[in-house]
């Protein structure tokens, strides 16, 4: 069941991130078809109302995101899917006047909006890949090691190891291994996005949030990122926001459909796309609106 380590509390000095990884996990070989062990809830979103100033962006949203699964948030623009995603690592804190008026978001049982939660620790655990790829104007190597250096890791051998591992993990190693000192901005759009994914996994988070990671990419680059998501699902819990319904259908296990700030339907991806329970969902996934 739930690991004993109470994560996300501001209990510095903290154990290294890897200890938060459940050590007893069975190799999660669960593909979209396999129904193995009962799904373990990692993130529990409980009746959340969210406001930008006076504007309510989320209305009573409740859903449970399962560990080591890919969860897709779909819905038309302005439906609140990105807002919810950014609640999960508290990126909304950066915007003045935002607040969760009601409800809670718990990760492994810890309410992440409590005052005693260290948002820095939280973000180490819940990484993020943005819509617009944002490699830093530094070398590829420095991009990957950025997060680790923040944590005070300066051992060259260790950094080298992480760089290779992360780049391999992001399926980018073979393309860039000879030019790690080149600027990350010299890469193509798709490579830049994979670099950002590599940068996120370098700090070994538990969850990776992806905010429309492919919206600026061409189909070939998109396919590569989707392939990558398939590989990462065994090691990370992934929440992906996408405009692209085919993408949700192709690479997620569970799909949540949002409309006007409300969660309309949340189910296995197969079910959402083949036998949606809700008429609005059906209309959206069949392309009749949105």
């Amino acid at each position, binding site marked *: 069941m739930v690991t004993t380590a109470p994560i996300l509390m501001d209990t510095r000095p903290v154990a290294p991130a890897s200890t938060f990884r459940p050590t007893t996990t069975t190799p999660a070989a669960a593909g979209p078809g396999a129904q193995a062990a009962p799904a373990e809830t990692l993130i529990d979103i409980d009746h959340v109302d969210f406001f930008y100033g006076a504007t309510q962006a989320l209305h009573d949203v409740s859903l449970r995101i399962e560990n080591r699964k890919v969860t897709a948030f779909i819905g038309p623009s302005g439906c609140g899917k990105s807002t919810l995603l950014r609640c999960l*690592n508290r*990126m909304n804190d*950066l915007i*003045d006047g935002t607040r969760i008026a009601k409800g809670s978001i718990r990760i492994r049982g810890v309410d992440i909006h409590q005052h005693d939660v260290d948002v*820095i*620790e939280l*973000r*180490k655990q819940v*990484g*993020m890949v*943005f819509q*617009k790829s*944002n*490699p*830093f*104007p*530094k070398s590829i190597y420095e991009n990957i090691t*950025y*997060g680790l250096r*923040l*944590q005070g890791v300066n051992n060259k051998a260790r950094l080298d190891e992480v760089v290779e591992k992360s780049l391999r993990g992001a399926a980018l190693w073979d393309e860039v291994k000879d030019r790690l000192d080149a*600027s990350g*901005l010299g890469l193509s759009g798709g490579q830049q996005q994979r670099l*950002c994914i590599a*940068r*996120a996994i370098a*700090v070994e988070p538990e969850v990776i949030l992806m905010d429309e990671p492919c919206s600026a990419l061409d189909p070939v680059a998109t396919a590569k990122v989707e392939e990558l998501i398939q590989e990462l699902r065994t090691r990370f819990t992934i929440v992906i926001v996408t405009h692209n319904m085919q993408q949700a259908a192709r690479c997620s296990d569970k799909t949540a459909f949002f409309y006007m700030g409300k969660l309309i339907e949340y189910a296995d991806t197969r079910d959402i796309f083949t036998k949606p329970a809700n008429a609005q969902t059906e209309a959206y996934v069949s392309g009749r609106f949105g």
Partner: protein
Amino acid sequence: MSTPTPSHVFQANLTPARRRESLIFGLFGGATYLVLLCGALVFGTIIFKGAGTVFQAKAPFINTSFLLDAPESLHVFQFEGKKMELGDRAFRLFQAEHPEVAKLKQESYIYSAGGIFPCIVGTLLLVVGSMTIALTLGVSAAIYLNEYARDGMFIRFIRLAILNLAGVPSIVFGLFGFGMFVIFFGWNVSLIAGWFTLAFMVLPVVITASEESLKAVPKGFREGSLALGATKWQTIRKNVLPYALPGILTSSILGIARVAGETAPIMFTAAYVVRDKLPWQVDKFSDFFFQGVMALPYHIYVVSSKIPQNEYTERVQYGTAFVFLVLVAMIATTSIILRNHLRNRYKW
């Protein structure tokens, strides 16, 4: 010749709108070239008249005495049928050899011989010190305003205050510095009083420009860094400030030109008409900060308006102005090279 008949449908003909257009363009162009002409005249005069003082026909082609000596009085007299022009020191040596000179009719002109070395040093010291203070305070304030402060009435008031400060005449800064640093803090006429006065004068420019540079750094860099578990300060230090630095430097180039050039703020706070000792000739280290200095713009002011004018002082006036222009150009060039270097390093 008969009136030309249009040979094709797009035949050009001079309609009133078209005539007005050429007139307007002519005016705009004229205004631009007039500015250019003024600039060329100013620089041309100074270079033409100043170069004669700074350069010389024989090797090493640069008048090293003008650049490396202190100002002296010029003595002009007739000696054995020859017209002699000697600086103070040379005159004394000459007099030792020819005591009869004392009886000759001679004219002396203050500050018209020697050089302007103490002024160059003083101006450099003033620029370096005040820009250090202005950049430290200005960048800090810009970081606070742009990255930390939440927009509200108070912040808007601060911004308004900064804008107003930018419009305050430099003589007012000079009086402020005199009242605050020279009198109230008891620093007397000193380098440190001048540094702070000049720094306060350019602070609004530095703050505003630094804020703009910080704003120009894409939000994605900040978000990307924060999402990796960086604190705000780590993000700013490692992933915002380095990219904003070229822009901040650009603004400081303007600041340098102003700090080096303003006379009013230093005339009560830091500048001496003349000082025999060089700034590093102090008894103890702390005295360094509490000494007045000579400065190029103030020296120009003194030799142009405080002493009797004649053909000899003109050489010093234009020579000093020329050196001053070259000095500012050199400092600015250094900053531009530094900026371009940084820009190439962090490009996005």
